[in-house]
């Protein structure tokens, strides 16, 4: 149990350290709505299976003989939408960053099974997009108040491990990779929904007080950060109560 806790908290620590240790490079946008919109669009884009999964299925020959039916997300591999919605914004960002880091690692492993250069180039583009997404997460984290506080634990899923067990044969490995990517797209869809809720929250805040919406949200997030609770952001984003199905 203790080990599990450590496993859960370790990425958070890593991410926190990462945020802190990030060298002063290109400046991030200081416009929250703009950055939120970028994240949302990235998530919307990345949720499409044609950006990665279809490529993988095709390259691995999994699009024949009904094999595609077996390419289902392994439950627990990625956080569910509900779980994501329950996270505070900061934790959500941290979780997102961690998960995408694991995706990058897994993609690096899957790269070995993709023979075609063209597919590899596409895969390289996907990885670059994920890195760009992580960059926006970093920038969004900078925009959130109390960005220096990085102690909040990040929920992780055991299924989101960097690589499957090495004992699997090739087919199983390909199928596992397919399941992983399936989960990835579902996860990104969930992330997009979360960001959309963020956007709705921002709109409501703007309608109420255009200039104070963000600050209010930020204050609540600060509060949630200080309370170190996972749920308060639910109050900040009431729409999340509707509970769109998770993965």
């Amino acid at each position: 149990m203790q080990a599990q806790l450590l496993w859960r908290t370790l990425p958070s620590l890593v991410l926190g350290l990462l945020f802190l240790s990030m060298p002063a490079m290109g400046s991030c946008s200081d416009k929250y709505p703009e950055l939120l919109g970028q994240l949302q669009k990235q998530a919307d884009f990345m949720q499409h299976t044609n950006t990665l999964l279809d490529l993988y299925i095709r390259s691995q020959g999994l699009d024949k003989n009904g094999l595609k039916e077996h390419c289902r997300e392994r439950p627990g591999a990625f956080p569910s939408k509900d779980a994501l919605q329950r996270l505070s914004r900061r934790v959500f960002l941290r979780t997102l960053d961690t998960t995408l880091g694991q995706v990058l690692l897994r993609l690096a492993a899957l790269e070995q099974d993709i023979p075609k250069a063209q597919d590899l180039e596409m895969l390289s583009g996907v990885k670059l997009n994920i890195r760009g997404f992580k960059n926006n997460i970093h920038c969004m984290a900078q925009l959130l108040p109390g960005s220096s506080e990085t102690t909040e634990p990040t929920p992780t899923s055991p299924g989101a491990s960097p690589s499957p067990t090495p004992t699997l044969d090739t087919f199983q490995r390909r199928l596992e990779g397919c399941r992983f990517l399936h989960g990835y797209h579902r996860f990104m869809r969930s992330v997009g929904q979360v960001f959309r809720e963020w956007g709705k929250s921002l709109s409501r805040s703007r309608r109420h007080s255009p200039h104070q919406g963000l600050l209010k949200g930020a204050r609540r997030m600060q509060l949630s950060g200080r309370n170190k609770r996972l749920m308060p952001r639910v109050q900040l984003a009431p729409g999340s109560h509707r509970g769109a199905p998770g993965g």
Partner: protein
Amino acid sequence: MLTLKIWIVQALFIFFTTESVGELLDPCGYIKPESPIVQLGSNFTAVCVLKEKCMDYFHVNANYIFWKTNHVTIPKEQYTIINKTASSVTFTDISLLNIQLTCNIRTFGQIDQNVYGIRIISGLPPEKPTNLSCIVNEGKKMMCQWDPGRETYLETNFTLKSEWATEKFADCKTKRDTPTSCTVDYSPVYFVNIEVWVEAENALGKVTSDHINFDPVDKVKPSPPHNLSVSNSEELSSILKLTWINSSIQGFIGLKYNIQYRTRDASTWSQIPPEDTASTRYSFTVQDLKPFTEYVFRIRCMKEDGKGFWSDWSEEASGITYEDRPSKAPSFWYKIEPSHTHGYRSVQLIWKTLPPFEANGKILDYEVTLTRWKSRLQNYTVNDTKWTVNITNDRYIATLTARNLVGKSNAAVLTIPAYDFQGFTRPVTDLKAFPKDNMLWVEWTAPNESVNKYILEWCVLSDKAPCIQDWQQEDGTVHRTYLRGNLAESKCYLITVTPVYADGPGSTESIKAYLKQAPPSKGPTVRTKKVGKNEAVLEWDQLPVDVQNGFIRNYTIFYRTIIGNETAVNVDSSHTEYTLSSLTSDTLYMVRMAAYTDEGGKDGPEFTFTTPKFAQGEIEAIVVPVCLAFLLTTLLGVLFCFNKRDLIKKHIWPNVPDPSKSHIAQWSPHTPPRHNFNSKDQMYSDGNFTDVSVVEIEAANDKKPFPEDLKSLDLFKKEKISTEGHSSGIGGSSCMSSSRPSISSSDENESAQNTSGTVQYSTVVHSGYRHQVPSVQVFSRSESTQPLLDSEERPEDLQLVDNIDSSVGNLPRQQYFKQNCSQHETSPDISHFERSKQVSSVNEEDFVRLKQQISDISQPYGSGQMKMFQEISVADAFGPRTEGQVERFETVGMEAAIDEGMPKSYLPQTVRRGGYMPQ
């Protein structure tokens, strides 16, 4: 093994060679800095340091150093001796880009030796790049460009740097041929802000542009929509539906569009309002299009928020709207054929094809109806645009409709008036035609009455071709339009406008116009109609309409003499002749003529004419009065002469007694009449002897002349010869005038001199007067005591002469003359002198009168008369004498005759051919 040996030998050779060369090339010193790059306009100092070894060897130190730039010695003022081995040189404000600097020493006082050399490169540090901008062409990598700033004259590297907040990208190094742009290696990541800047660096510095931070998706230039297609709708003839496929960028961003369209034959595009295409879509229906019209479409897109760049235009696609029934009736008109049979007339109905925008489809045929007054309607279907029909002289109403796949047009109605219709009035007024915007516009004032429509007809006026009319129809509300025909420039159009009323056409008005004028093709040919001394009437023909090329506004006549300046005269275009005045008489003029339209002129051929010296009638005006005056003078002279004929006769043509009628002729030894020659009164009493010449030879002096006197007489004789020769024209030659002496010899003279008796006689010679040969040899009575000549004493001899004379004609006379002349030449002319002296004793009054006669004669006739004399004397009298002699005679003779100092005994004698007048 052998190979190894060879290798070792080669290696050793190279080693030693290198060492030895190194020794040989070891310089005597060096310059610091070694390879300087300095900024233009800055100061620069170089130091030359000599090596001790060289200094010892050449016995030199830093004082011996001198510097050169590009082989030119630098003034020593720029040197600084730092120490014994080092000398520096300083340059201020370097302006050359490339300088060769050498350090030299002078060894042994005279040998210049180069120690070391460097090359100074000059330039400028890079300027801060500006106007950095990036573009992401969809499907390609990001490309950024910038302004590099000023020229640095040095190799300057530009590096495009980019990074995210969490990640740096690889630098983008510019290529040598594109130093102001660079395309990054990585694919753009949309929705992630990236920071980009440019670094420019050369040997003199490094500078960085401003950083720009943007989302690459805002710099996207999308690929244009593709597979654009157009489809029409049978239900609606005014719409076309466009469909297309968006580029893949629409997966990331929303798009907005520009849709443009035009008809096939148009050149300008119309655009769908942008607000109708402001969001991502895949089709669009364009409305309000014309039926049965082909439209061309194109489309482009960009990010819907306006950030980024418009894509290129898509490929064009076209479609045709569906047909609709013709929207308008065709233009409808008629012509009545000239031929007219009794009771019928041939009418040609003509109409225009509808333009596509009115036909709204393919016209299948036309339907014509003809309705005579109160008779039933007749239908005809015609595929052509004209139809000729014979109709009666009644009034007809014709209608015309055009039909296409969808339906028929409205009917065009035309009233053809009856044959005897007299109501052709009510024309348009103020008809004008003018070119504008490369079209020929016609404008008129409408009649007061309501007009159904106007028919405009026009044709090209030409002398070579008939006027083939074109026409068009305008609505009754129109009063200005342009001719919609294929008009040509420089052609004269005759335009007529006919108002068409409900009851038929009105009167026609016409006007001429040009679409565009040009200078005439040919100039007018000018010619003279009449040329006077100081003026000329020029005329020319009007230019044919085919060469006018415009309205002839005026003519210009250019005329000049050969040497004079050209004069130009402008003449109104309505004239066909012009009078040039103030011309110079008897002068060649060159004249040409130019005709001008509004656009310029054209010269005609040059024509030359010469003004006469005299005006017409001027010669007559001079000659006639002169002739009249001359005639009058002559008449007066004649009258005067007639009145004074006696006096003139007396002075000019003295009566020469006819020897044949002389009383002396009747004198004979038997009946010697006695004449008293001394009685002047007796002489003058007889009219026939008014001017008889009398020669009195007196032997007053018995003395024989002294030789001196003879000499002087001889001299005088010469003069006398000439005088006689000259006067021979009047009185005959000396030979003739001295007939007596010729008859009498010198001996006889002597004897005469010795004779105290005064028997004077003279001989009337046989030759007679005016070719009249005397019938008998007659002698006048002489009172001379001189014994008679042998001939006289021997009448037979005389008879012989007379016979010879009568038988041979002129021969004896010539011989006689010849003889006399020879005598004249050979014998002294004392007798002349004597005779003169004798004459001098004659009454002084007579002499004066004679002298006056001579003067009167010689004065008016002058040399001409003398010439005549000369010819006579030369030909008949003097024969072999030279002309010079003759001329001398002429002058001297005259002088002798009038010279008072000369003996007055000489008398002029009138000599005629073949005879002489005795004195």
